[in-house]
């Protein structure tokens, strides 16, 4: 009964590849997010969707594209992966802002 689940948990891939991370929440929340945590544990928001509509798009390279097929899902697709993309990516959800529920994270390693 995981509230926010994301897959895969680990992702190791070569530079230049395209990869996707999937996220699903079963909390009935209206807003979903992608955060990136770097090697120094600093967390920064990347994107936010409210009722399938993109509402936050921070300064993120165009190679990153979020897609929300419905309110319960928010996927992250990354094109032409670079070494600097290596990080832990967290999906989260909340209801009308406020308290956020986070997934377990996807540790992306680009080699």
């Amino acid at each position: 009964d995981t509230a926010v689940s994301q897959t895969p948990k680990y992702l190791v891939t070569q530079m230049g590849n395209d990869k996707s991370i999937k996220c699903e929440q079963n909390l009935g929340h209206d807003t979903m997010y992608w955060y990136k945590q770097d090697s120094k544990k600093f967390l920064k928001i990347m994107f936010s969707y409210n009722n399938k509509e993109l509402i936050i798009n921070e300064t993120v390279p165009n190679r990153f594209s979020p897609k929300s097929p419905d309110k319960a899902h928010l996927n992250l697709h990354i094109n032409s992966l670079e070494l600097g993309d290596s990080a832990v990516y967290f999906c989260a959800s909340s209801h009308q802002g406020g308290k956020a529920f986070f997934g377990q994270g996807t540790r992306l390693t680009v080699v």
Partner: protein
Amino acid sequence: SQQGEEDPQALSIQEGENATMNCSYKTSINNLQWYRQNSGRGLVHLILIRSNEREKHSGRLRVTLDTSKKSSSLLITASRAADTASYFCATDGLGGGTSYGKLTFGQGTILTVHP
């Protein structure tokens, strides 16, 4: 730019002692939240304090908020080894619209509680 600054960056205490972590931020907020992250895991929400509140309690947690100083503190009383984790403050800024639900995190405090 980073919103929150946390202090200290690392804290090491013995079981049973209290742990206090501080957070400062720069802009006006709707609320401030504290999260815990165990090693290799996701973030877990601990407590939310609204901008019109000054203090809030939840079990062994006590959070204060001083909006005039743009600062907050998290106190964990009677700490346990299981409290060992990283603790982050996050601010939900004013503005609505494109800032809706956007959390801006501090750098975190690494707490180690020795048995």
